[in-house]
């Protein structure tokens, strides 16, 4: 690939040509925007231009996961366009269909049927127009690259662009337009390369962190170092504003307990945020790291039996002791720790506002910002600009709220960049977990009874900025069916006659602010549950894979287990391999998923029994996500999931010191580095006859369990806590 002349000049040239940096967000050639966005109207989804290209409007955010490419493929497939002919419109409350937030890896799962229906409707309409124009019935027409041709005389043709170029379809998505049959797919199921990758490697792409507005000032928030209890917030006692005197034109902004600084130069804002001396009121803290889980287990809870199938107690009463397993384990707070701290820009006027941010749900961001600046949601336009991968609800809404309030206070556009300490210390962490499981089986290893008790707190609804402004107090999410113990991960992989799941919900106001972190709590559930299943195999002298196969009736669970173990060339192993030497090798298997789809993993690890160091050598991960639109992208997703799981199992934990989060940076909250990255084998189990389901997080629980089970295979001991730090490993081996 060669650079265009403009790129060359920007990068190197004798002449510097600087495009306004906000061009990519504000000045992009706008596609014809229909009057009102309506999910029922083809025009809200799709425009065909005179040059025979198309623009697809979507409500989901591109987070680096490649979902945009997959949904463009869906539209191009139905319309018989090439990928070069179709592009995605920027995500913007002004014109994007409100498909809901970009959650649960469900962009393709929810978006594919919607986009396919709209594109099929458009195609049917275009064919009808072409039939009129060419004077033949639609049955005698075919489409190649947006050119409608008469089958027997391809020279008689008309392009989509000639038929409708830049005019509206004025057509309802009826849902009755015929969808392409899968035997005719040209794109779906193939590894089409992402067209959006090159700009990320050349410097042409501007992330939210590199987006600028004219005459903006730079802002930073000022918060205590590391959060304490969510309910306590951060309350100002005293501020000594003189501490920032003389730092350029930096000045302090304060509204309620919300404190920030702004300056014309970013470096002045950074210096001022560091220098400003704020005395914060003492706030309720958490138990320190090593006391946290005992406190959670003792705490008052709201208990909820999520599932009670058969008679679990009777099943246990009937099972002899050696066919019964009890296992309990503790799991940490973990941070999203996006590679770039969150950032947002806002330009708030008297009766309107523009906010540019990386929120995974721009509609929700708008509703959250409105009460902070006294505008109605429809007076606020929110535009999405990509940040670094965030893997769940990090601080993107928090920073957008801060930017809006600060812009209103200074009467100018403001760019707010969180510091690394803001991001690591004030994240909506993935919550901790205590799990206790018991299971029993017959002599052949068929699991007859299973009970899982899980202790955790819910996600936080109100962001820190809103809380500090006094607009709304700390509030947890309302109880929802997905927030408790995951029935799919906790024994749901197996056909178990008697099963009971109990959720012990803690009062989240007494704990850290929390949010969903990629495969929320599933790593924890699997760490507990799948170790117990493995323990049963060990007690019965059975191969862990054979025991699982014996308990699976669902062909799709069986399929992913087979795929992962086949890739890993699994050999039956009943007992931990006898080993000598300092480094002990082990291999383990695990099954799990998130809300849909099916995941299986095999882990090969080495444990140093002298130092306690754990090395993950190889991870194999298989996913069945139904019809995979783009297997290349899903392989990349599996790779990322497995590497992140290695990181979360070995290193990641928000430590608590003096009641507060001690996470500040990459030293106090480390993640996996290249030297420690295992070999990765991703496996896509393609099922084109099934609907497409999530593929962005569904091997992580399986991999977490596989790593834990490999540890047992290597050492004969079980880890009851992760991450598997050397100190914990040595304690387990003692």
């Amino acid at each position, binding site marked *: 690939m060669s650079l265009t002349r403009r790129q060359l000049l920007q990068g190197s040239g004798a002449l510097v040509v600087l495009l306004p940096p906000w061009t990519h967000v504000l000045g992009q050639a706008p596609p014809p925007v229909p009057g009102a966005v309506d999910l029922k109207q083809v025009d809200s989804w799709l425009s065909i231009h005179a040059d025979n290209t198309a623009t697809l409007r979507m409500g989901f955010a591109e987070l680096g996961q490649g979902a945009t490419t997959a949904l463009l493929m869906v539209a191009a497939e139905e319309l018989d366009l090439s990928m070069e002919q179709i592009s995605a419109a920027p995500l913007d409350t002004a014109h994007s269909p409100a498909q809901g937030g970009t959650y649960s890896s469900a962009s393709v799962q929810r978006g594919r049927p919607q986009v396919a229906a709209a594109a099929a409707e458009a195609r049917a309409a275009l064919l009808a127009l072409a039939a009129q124009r060419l004077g033949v019935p639609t049955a005698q027409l075919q489409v190649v690259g947006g050119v409608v041709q008469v089958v027997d005389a391809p020279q008689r043709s008309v392009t989509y662009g000639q038929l409708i170029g830049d005019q509206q379809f004025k057509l309802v998505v009826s849902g009755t337009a015929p969808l392409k049959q899968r035997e005719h797919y040209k794109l779906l199921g193939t590894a089409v390369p992402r067209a959006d990758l090159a700009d990320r490697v050349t*410097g042409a792409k501007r992330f939210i962190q*590199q987006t600028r507005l004219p005459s903006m000032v730079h802002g930073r928030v000022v918060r205590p170092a590391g959060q304490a209890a969510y309910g306590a917030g951060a309350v100002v006692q005293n501020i000594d504003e003189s501490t920032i005197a003389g730092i350029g034109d930096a000045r302090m902004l304060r509204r309620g307990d919300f404190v920030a600084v702004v300056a014309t*130069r970013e470096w002045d804002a950074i210096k001022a945020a560091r220098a400003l001396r704020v005395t914060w009121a003492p706030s309720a803290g958490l138990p320190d790291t090593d006391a946290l889980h005992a406190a959670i287990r003792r705490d008052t809870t709201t208990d909820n039996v999520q599932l009670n199938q058969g008679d679990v107690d009777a099943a246990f009463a009937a099972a002899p002791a050696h066919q019964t397993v009890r296992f309990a384990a503790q799991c940490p707070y973990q941070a999203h720790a996006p590679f770039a701290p969150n950032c947002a820009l806002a330009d708030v006027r008297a009766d309107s506002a523009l906010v540019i941010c990386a929120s995974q749900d721009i509609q929700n961001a708008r509703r959250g910002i409105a009460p902070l600046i006294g505008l109605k949601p429809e007076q606020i336009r929110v535009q999405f600009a990509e940040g670094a*991968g965030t893997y769940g609800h990090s601080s993107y809404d928090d920073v957008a709220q801060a930017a809006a309030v600060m812009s209103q206070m200074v009467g100018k556009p403001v760019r707010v960049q969180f510091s690394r300490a803001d991001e690591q210390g004030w994240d909506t962490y993935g919550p901790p977990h205590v799990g206790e499981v018991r299971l029993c089986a017959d002599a052949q290893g068929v699991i007859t009874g299973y009970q899982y008790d899980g202790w955790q707190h819910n996600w936080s609804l109100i962001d820190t900025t809103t809380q500090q402004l006094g607009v709304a107090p700390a509030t947890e999410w309302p109880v929802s069916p997905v927030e408790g113990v995951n029935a799919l991960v906790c024994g749901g992989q197996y056909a178990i006659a008697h099963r009971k799941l109990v959720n012990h919900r803690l009062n989240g106001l007494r704990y850290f602010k929390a949010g969903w972190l990629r495969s929320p709590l599933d790593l924890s559930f699997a760490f507990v549950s799948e170790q117990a299943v493995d323990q049963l195999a060990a007690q019965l002298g059975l191969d862990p894979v054979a025991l699982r196969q014996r308990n699976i009736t669902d062909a799709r669970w069986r399929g992913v287990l087979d795929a992962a173990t086949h890739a890993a060339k699994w050999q039956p192993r009943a007992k931990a391999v006898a080993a000598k030497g300092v480094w002990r090798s082990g291999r383990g298997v695990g099954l799990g998923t998130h809300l849909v789809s099916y995941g299986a993993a095999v882990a090969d690890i080495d444990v140093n029994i002298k130092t306690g160091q754990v090395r993950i050598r190889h991870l194999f991960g298989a996913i069945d996500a139904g019809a995979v639109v783009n297997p290349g992208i899903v392989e990349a997703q599996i790779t990322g999931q497995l590497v992140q799981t290695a990181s979360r199992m070995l290193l990641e934990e928000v430590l608590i010191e003096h009641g507060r989060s001690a996470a500040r940076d990459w030293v106090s909250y480390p993640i996996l580095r*290249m030297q420690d990255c295992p070999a990765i084998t991703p496996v896509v189990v393609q099922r084109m006859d099934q609907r497409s389901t999530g593929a962005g997080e569904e091997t992580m629980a399986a991999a977490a369990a596989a790593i834990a089970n490999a540890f047992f295979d290597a050492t004969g001991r079980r880890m009851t806590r992760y991450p598997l730090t050397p100190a914990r490993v040595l304690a387990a081996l003692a």
Partner: protein
Amino acid sequence: MTTLKVNGLSHTVTAAADEPLLYVLGNDLELAGPRFGCGLAQCGSCSVLVDGVEMRSCVTTLAQVGTREVTTLEGLPRWHALRLGKPVGEGAAVALHPVQQALIDAAAPQCGYCMNGMAIKAAELLSHNLHPTEAQIRTALNGHLCRCGTYPRIIAAVLQAAAVLRKDKA
């Protein structure tokens, strides 16, 4: 007023001499290659080459850079062309640095935010080692984090770039 040489151009900027290079590159020169990640030299997202040596622009002040030549991700193609003795003037088609091309070909990026540091550091490595082993690549890039978990494809891309460079040299 400080004068700075970036990607073959001289710039005069009003920033104080104690200001880190990153904020000048991003705000005054409006370059998007070097990216803010931590401001603590811990992650490598802000890396640039200074006289061919990888440095963390978030903690390197203008005074420390002095009159040395700064190369950002945007300037990597030019830097590479000059090393090969190829023309870089106006109108010349300058190819991407082989490591950039290899990262694209390997579909290494997911979000791609780390790609600046990865490309810069790998370019530095390949400038003095055309035969890096996988272990040497892992060691060289160990100070560059990736949250998406793209390390395996980055390693493959750097190996591929080394092969291309060897061929170019032969």
